[in-house]
C-alpha cells in the first residue's frame, strides 16, 4: 500500500490542540505540524478540518504553517533492544535524546526507538521449514536480548501465509530480512527482527485463561493478605505520601515476573532516576541478574506535555502485550493512572466536550475498563501461555476514594491495595489498610500456598485478620471507657495484634533484609507470631497476668525477626521459634504446678 502524501496547513492553535486543514487525513493518524515538525495525532475530523493533539509544546507555532499526515496511527517499535531502556510517552529513547540534545527535551526531534546498527545473534527455530504455513505470533527464532531475557522473534500478528525462507543463525541488525512469508494475497512480506504495532489496538491472542498462581512480590501484606494472581488487575489508591510509588517500586524489584514495564505517567522525574540508578545494582532474587536486565521504563513526567501522557500507558501496555505474546509473565506498573485520566480530561475540555463528573468526560469509565482489559493471562497465537499483570496507582484528590477515577477503577480490578494516610502518618509502612483492601483471588492463591508452602496458610491468614478486626473493636472500647474495662484475654488480643502489625505487616522497603520476604519466610513469621499468641492465650487461661507476658523479652526480639533473618536463614528462624516457644512452655509448667498446688 503506497501512502499518498497529505499536506495541509495549521488553522488554529489552542495549547496542545491544533486545528489543521488536511484533506484526506484519517482519524487517529499521526501528523507533523509547523516548521519544527512537532508530532501529534488526529483526534477528530470535521469536513476538511482535523483536530490534532500535539505531543510537544506548541509555543511559537503559528497559523499558516504546514502540517502533514504520516499515514499511520501512533505505533511502537517492537523488537530486541527494548529492555533496559527508558522511553518517553511516545517511545522516543530518552538516553539517546540526552546524548544528542542535552539536558532538556528538544522539540521536533524524533530518533528511532530501537538501535538500527546493533547486531543481534539470531537463532532460527529448528521446527520451521520453507513452505510451511505460518501464522501471526508464530516463533521464528530467538535473540538473547539481555542475559536474563531471551527475546522470541515472532511473526507480526497481522501477517499469515506460507514461510518462504528463514535466515540461518547469524548476526543481523534490525533492518535486515530474517524471513520471508507469502501472505494470503500472494504478496511476499519481508520479516525483520522488529515490527511495528498501533498502540490503541490490542494485540490478538487465542483465548483467555484463568489465573492460576499468585504473583509473589516479597511483600508480606500483599502476598499473604491481599494476593494478586499473575494476569490479574490491581489498583493502588492512596493520598500523596501514603506509599503508592514505593509499593510499585517494590513490586518492580521483587516480583517473580519475567518482564517488568514501569510507566511513570505524570509523576516525578527523580522517581525514574531512582529506578535507573538502583535497578542495575540490585539483583533479581530468582535469577541473580541485575534487575535492569528485565525492566523497561516509560516516562512522561508531570512536567512533560500532557498529551503524550495520555499515550504513555498505551505505549506501555502494547510493549507488555508483545512480551506476553512471546510467552512471558509480564508485570506492568502505571504510576499514576489518575494523571492519565486527567490528561484525558484536559483534552476533552479543550474540545468542549460535555463534562459529567468533576470535569471528566462521559467516556472515562469505558476507557479505563478497556485499558485494564488488556491485562490477563492468555493462550498466545503460538499456543503458549503468557500473562500481563496490571497494577495501577490511583491518586484521588484529597485522598477521597469516592472520586470518579478511584470508584470506576474499583469496579474493574480484582485486587485493591488501599493506602491509608493515618498509617503512613504513624510511619506504619507499607501503609496498606487491611480493612479497605481486598483480593478476589484468595481462594486460588490458597491452593498455591497450600501446595508450595504450608497447608495451614489459609487458616493462619484468617486468624490474623480476625485478630486485627478484634483489635479495632477493642480499641474502640478502650477509647470510650479506658483500658481497665478489658479482660486479660482481651488485652492479650491487643498485644497479639500489635505483634502482627509490627512483626508481619510492617515491612521496610529501605531495610536491606526486610525489603524482600520469600513466601517461606512470610509464612514462618506469621505462624510464629500466631503460635506465640496462642501459647499466651492458653497461659492467660491459667491465670498468668497479661502484664507478665507483655514484658517478656522474647517479644521485642520477635518484632525484629523480620530484619534479623533473611529469606535464606529459615533454619535460624526455626531455632529462634523453638527458643521463643520454650520460654512460654516454662511459664506454662510453672503455673500449671502452682495451679496443682493450690488445687
Amino acid at each position, binding site marked *: 500500500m503506497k501512502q499518498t502524501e497529505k499536506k495541509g496547513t495549521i488553522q*488554529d*492553535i489552542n495549547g496542545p490542540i491544533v486545528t489543521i486543514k488536511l484533506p484526506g487525513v484519517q482519524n487517529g493518524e499521526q501528523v507533523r505540524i509547523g516548521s519544527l515538525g512537532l508530532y501529534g495525532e488526529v483526534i477528530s475530523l470535521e469536513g476538511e478540518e482535523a483536530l490534532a493533539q500535539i505531543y510537544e509544546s506548541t509555543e511559537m507555532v503559528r497559523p499558516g504553517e504546514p502540517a502533514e499526515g504520516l499515514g499511520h496511527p501512533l505505533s511502537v517499535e517492537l523488537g530486541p533492544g527494548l529492555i533496559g531502556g527508558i522511553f518517553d510517552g511516545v517511545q522516543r529513547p530518552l538516553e539517546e535524546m540526552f546524548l544528542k540534545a542535552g539536558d*532538556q527535551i528538544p522539540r521536533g526531534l524524533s530518533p528511532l526507538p530501537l538501535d538500527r546498527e546493533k547486531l543481534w545473534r539470531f537463532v532460527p527455530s529448528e521446527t520451521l521449514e520453507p513452505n510451511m504455513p505460518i501464522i501471526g505470533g508464530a516463533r521464528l527464532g530467538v535473540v538473547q536480548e539481555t542475559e536474563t531475557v531471551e527475546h522470541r522473534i515472532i511473526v507480526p500478528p497481522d501477517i499469515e501465509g506460507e514461510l518462504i525462507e528463514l535466515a540461518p543463525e547469524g548476526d543481523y541488525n534490525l533492518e535486515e530480512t530474517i524471513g520471508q512469508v507469502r501472505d494470503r494475497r500472494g504478496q511476499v512480506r519481508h520479516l525483520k527482527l522488529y515490527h511495528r504495532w498501533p498502540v490503541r489496538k490490542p494485540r490478538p491472542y487465542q483465548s483467555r485463561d484463568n489465573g492460576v498462581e499468585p504473583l509473589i512480590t516479597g511483600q508480606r501484606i500483599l502476598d499473604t493478605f491481599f494476593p494478586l494472581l499473575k494476569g490479574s488487575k490491581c489498583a493502588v489508591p492512596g493520598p500523596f505520601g501514603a506509599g503508592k510509588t514505593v509499593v510499585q517500586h517494590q513490586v518492580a524489584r521483587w516480583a517473580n515476573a519475567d518482564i517488568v514495564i514501569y510507566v511513570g505517567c505524570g509523576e516525578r522525574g527523580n522517581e525514574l532516576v531512582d529506578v535507573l540508578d538502583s535497578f542495575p545494582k540490585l539483583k533479581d532474587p530468582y535469577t541473580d541478574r541485575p534487575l535492569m536486565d528485565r525492566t523497561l521504563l516509560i516516562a512522561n513526567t508531570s512536567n512533560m506535555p500532557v498529551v503524550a501522557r495520555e499515550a504513555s500507558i498505551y505505549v506501555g501496555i502494547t510493549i507488555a502485550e508483545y512480551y506476553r505474546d512471546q510467552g512471558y509473565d509480564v508485570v506492568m506498573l502505571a504510576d499514576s493512572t489518575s494523571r492519565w485520566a486527567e490528561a484525558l*480530561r484536559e483534552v476533552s*475540555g479543550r474540545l468542549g466536550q460535555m463534562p459529567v463528573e468533576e470535569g471528566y468526560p462521559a467516556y472515562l469509565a469505558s476507557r479505563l475498563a478497556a485499558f485494564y482489559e488488556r491485562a490477563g493471562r492468555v493462550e498466545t497465537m503460538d499456543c503458549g501461555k503468557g500473562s500481563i499483570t496490571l497494577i495501577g496507582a490511583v491518586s484521588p484528590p484529597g485522598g477521597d476514594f469516592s472520586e470518579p477515577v478511584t470508584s470506576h477503577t474499583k469496579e474493574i480490578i480484582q485486587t485493591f491495595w488501599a493506602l491509608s494516610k493515618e498509617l503512613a*502518618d504513624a510511619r506504619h509502612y507499607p501503609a496498606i489498610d487491611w480493612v479497605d483492601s481486598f483480593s478476589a483471588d484468595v481462594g486460588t492463591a490458597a491452593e498455591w500456598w497450600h501446595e508450595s508452602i504450608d497447608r495451614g496458610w489459609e487458616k493462619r491468614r484468617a486468624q490474623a485478620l480476625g485478630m486485627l478486626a478484634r483489635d479495632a473493636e477493642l480499641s474502640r472500647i478502650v477509647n470510650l471507657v479506658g483500658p481497665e474495662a478489658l479482660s486479660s484475654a482481651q488485652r492479650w488480643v491487643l498485644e497479639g495484634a500489635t505483634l502482627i502489625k509490627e512483626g508481619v505487616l510492617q515491612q521496610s522497603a529501605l531495610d536491606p533484609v526486610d525489603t524482600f520476604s520469600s513466601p517461606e519466610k512470610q509464612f514462618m513469621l506469621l505462624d510464629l507470631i500466631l503460635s506465640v499468641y496462642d501459647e499466651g492465650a492458653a497461659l492467660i487461661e491459667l491465670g498468668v497476668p497479661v502484664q507478665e507476658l507483655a514484658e517478656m523479652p522474647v517479644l*521485642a526480639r520477635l518484632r525484629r525477626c523480620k530484619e534479623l533473618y533473611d529469606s535464606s536463614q529459615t533454619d535460624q528462624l526455626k531455632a529462634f521459634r523453638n527458643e521463643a516457644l520454650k520460654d512460654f512452655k516454662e511459664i506454662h509448667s510453672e503455673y500449671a504446678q502452682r495451679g496443682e498446688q493450690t488445687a
Partner: protein
Amino acid sequence: MSAKEYRTASAARGGLLTVADVPNIAFGDRVRIRDQQGNTRNGQVIRSSNEEVLVQVFEGTAELDLESTWVRFLDEPVEIALSPEILGRVFNGLGEPRDYRPPIVSNLRRSISAAAFNPAARTYPKEFIQTGVSTIDGLNSLVRGQKLPIFSASGLPHNRLAAQIVRQAKLPDDDSRFSVVFAAMGVSYSDARFFQEEFASSGVLGNVVMFVNMADDPPVERLTLPRMALTAAEYLAFDLDRHVLVVMTDMTHYAEALREVATAKGDVPARKGYPGYLYSDLAEIYERSGRIKDRHGSITLVPVLSMPSDDITHPIPDLTGYITEGQIVLSRELNNQGIYPPVHISPSLSRLMKDGIGKDFTREDHPHVSNQLYALYARALETRNLASIIGADELSARDRRYLEFADAFESRFVRQGEDEDRSIEETLNLAWDLLSAFPPQALTRVNETEIAKYHRQSE
C-alpha cells in the same frame, strides 16, 4: 520586532483581549498593548487563528476601550535577560526592574517556559542540607535539589521559618557558591519588607535575586513570575555553577491567579473552580528543581503556600503534595501553644531523606531514630487523645510515659529559637535524650547496636 500595530480589538473580558483579523500570529507570542492614555500593557497570545487571536493581558483589561487600543505582536516568546548582574536585583513578574535601577542588558535572553528536563539527564539528589531546624534535619531532611514546600495557613510563621532556613542552610563541610532566588506572589508590603530586611541583615542580599508581585499588583503577572524566577535560577545553577535555593511565596496566590484566568477563558473547572490542568501547571514549576548530570550547580526549591481554611485536602496543597518531594506542615495548634517552629510532624514528609542520611551522610542511627520518634509520637498522640477522654489518672504507667514523651518532644525537640542553629549531631543527641525515657525493649525501630551505643540506660 514587528512594527505593525493593530486596532482590531473586538472583545475584552477578565484578563483577556480578543483581537480580530491578525494573520499568522504565533501561539505564546509576547504582546504589547497601548491604551487610550498611551500607557503600555503586556500580554501573551494564548490562542491563535487567522480570524482571531486571544491575548492574556498581564495588567488586566480594566479601562480598556476597544476603539483606541493598539496591539503590537512582538514575535518573541516571553523572555528574561540574564547576566551575573541579576544578583542583588529586584524584578517584577515580567522581569522588569522594580528597584529603580536600569534593566539588565545582555545578549543572553531565555524563554521562561523552558522545555522539560529529560529524566535521563537528572541525577538523584542525595546531599544532606543542614537547616539547623531539628524537625527538618532530624525527621524530614532536605537534600540539595529537592522540592520541599512549607504548608502553612494564615497567621502561622511560615515566613520566619523560610527566612531561618535561608539563613542557616548549609552543607556540612562545604562552602561552595550559593545563591537565593526569591519569588513573591501577591504578598503584602510587610511580608516583602520582612524578607528584604532578612536578606540584608544576614548579609546575603548581594547573592539574592528577587521577583516581587505585591498583593495590589496585577494578578496575571503572578503567572509569569515563578517562571521568570526559575529561569533565573536555572541560569545561576547550570550556567554559573551555583547552588541555588529558591523560595516561593505564596503559591496559593499563584493558583488563584491561574483560576481567575482559566475562568475568564471558560476552561472546564475540576475541583473548587480550579482548572483540571492546575496539576500539570504546578508541575511545570516544581519540576524545574533538581540536579543535572555533569553540572555543578543545583536548584533546591522551598515553595510556601497557605492552605485555605487550614484544609490540607484543598486542591492547592493537595496537588502540590502530589508533585513535590514531601512537605513540611505547620500546625495552628502548636502555634497557639507558643511553639516555634510549629512543625506538625505527622503529616510532614521528606521523600528524598532516605538517600541523603545515615552512615556516610549524617550518622548511622539517623534513619532509625527518625522512624522511632515518628512511631512513638503517633502512639503518644493516641494516648493524649485517650487521656482527654478518660483522664490522665486512669492511664497505666506505660501510657503515662507516652504522654510525658509527647510533651517533652514538643517542648524540647520541636520547639527551638529562631536563631538557634542546631547541628545534626545535636539534633540526634537530643532525640536520644527523649528516647532514653523508654526502656530499650520498647524501642523496636532502632536496632540493638544503636541502643547499646546511644541509649542512656545502657551507658
